[in-house]
């Protein structure tokens, strides 16, 4: 469904070239959830944004749904792939109601039956009809993220890219959103890539996981390998140990 080969992203910052991602190659099969884990500055979000076409990138192959993904995307290309952002407070237009926000993709793609689709999308992500005409500031963080997910799925795209979708949320809200994503993944047979700094979240939702450090993929492992610690790279081991909590060295 998604093929990435030798992807690299270079930013020009203050007259210098900064390699944010380099030699990134992986494939995501249809229906799979692929995870990318790394610490800040590892380039994990950059890779996701490059696949979405939000940042310019270079690669020998970048295919989405069997078609090369050009730097300039057509409206039909856009429809195949949607994105959920990290911060639910920043990803919704502050002056638009939930209804306006959900209507927008349907109007852009000139899809009929807008009203019914908006009502269905609201129910689908576990919101209530009374949320339909609220502004984002009248919603909680979890509800906003549900709106963002509804917006991403309203065009029924085959691919969903998730950039730290729960890291701005409380534990209990995170659980609700992760459950929602797992359910929607089933009912929409979505292919998705989940980027997170939280190993437990990625292991919970993903089948295969790429570990990134300093702009490169260190290794790609299965979720069970992550749990059992059957990993090759020292960095992965260090990351797993750190995620299990603080280990006191006996005095």
């Amino acid at each position: 469904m998604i093929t990435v080969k030798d992807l690299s992203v270079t930013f020009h910052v203050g007259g210098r070239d900064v390699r944010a991602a380099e030699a990134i190659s992986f494939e995501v099969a249809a229906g799979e959830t692929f995870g990318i884990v790394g610490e800040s500055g590892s380039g994990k979000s950059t890779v996701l944004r490059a696949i979405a076409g939000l940042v310019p990138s270079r690669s020998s192959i970048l295919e989405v749904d069997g078609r090369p993904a050009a730097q300039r995307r057509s409206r039909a290309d856009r429809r195949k792939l949607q994105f959920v952002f990290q911060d639910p407070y920043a990803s919704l237009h502050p002056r638009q109601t939930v209804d306006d926000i959900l209507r927008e993709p349907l109007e852009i793609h000139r899809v009929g039956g807008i009203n019914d689709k908006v009502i269905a999308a609201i129910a689908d992500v576990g919101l209530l009809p009374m949320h339909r005409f609220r502004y984002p500031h009248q919603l909680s963080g979890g509800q906003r993220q549900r709106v963002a997910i509804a917006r991403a799925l309203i065009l029924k795209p085959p691919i969903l890219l998730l950039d730290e979708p729960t890291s701005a949320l409380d534990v209990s809200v995170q659980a609700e959103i992760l459950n929602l994503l797992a359910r929607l993944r089933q009912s929409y047979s979505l292919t998705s890539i989940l980027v997170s700094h939280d190993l437990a979240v990625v292991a919970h939702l993903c089948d295969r996981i790429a570990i990134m450090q300093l702009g490169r993929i260190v290794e790609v492992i299965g979720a069970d390998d992550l749990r059992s610690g059957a990993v090759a790279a020292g960095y992965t081991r260090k990351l797993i140990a750190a995620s299990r909590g603080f280990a006191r060295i006996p005095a």
Partner: protein
Amino acid sequence: MTNESLLIVEGLDVNFPGRTGVTRAVRNASFKLGRERLGIVGESGSGKTTMGRALLGLLPHTATVTARTMSYEGRNLLNCTERDWQQLRGRRMSMVMQDPKYSLNPVKTVGRQIGETCMLHLGTSRKQARQRTLSMLEAVQIRDPELVHGLYPHQLSGGMGQRVMIAMMLIAEPDLLIADEPTSALDVTVQNEVLRILDDLVRDRGMGLIMISHNLTMVSSFCDRVLIMYGGRIVEECAARDLTNAQHPYTRALVAATPSLDVRRAELATVTRDPEWLK
């Protein structure tokens, strides 16, 4: 760990007047702290940060703080004036906050800021202050203290900035440190390095530590004892290692809602809030 209590809080209430009525941020909270590591866990809005700030007299003037007892090393905190607080804070008790970026003065070098704290609270000379600052920077495991001494805050990485914060907060050798989400802005590998530094300092100096956090895994692995807060109320107190066997339904739900590397769950438990918990 000694039995002597550094901090005794009984029946603490914090209220904020608002446009639509009073917000009860902390309700009837009681706990004691010895020379130990106490964790306070809760979700946003649980009142954990407000409680931490109330203990340091750092709440805005609009807040009303009432308690049956709130004493620190035998001293009543309830009738402290702003001047008393200033003498207590820094010298006797101190606070590390989430983001060092906002807590350090951007136009002063690291060394000067720590040195000034030292001269202010310990009355040392400039030269002694410099000596102490350098050894404090060394204590928080900064490799080149001389270099970092002359740096400005924006030249520090997140982990480095948090170490500098800890150095600044501990230079006056307080007996109590309140750390409010000290590592949540940091990467997980750096997070543990910072925790280790805190752990060593607290143990070596026999300090009391209150660790305020939303991160159950971190608190249960780092602290001795944990208070779980919900809606401004302490709903449960337990030994940190027993957190997974907690009694209160909220704590249990919180543990079950956290994705874990150890257990594979098809679905995460969600928290069904019970109004009874607030009674």
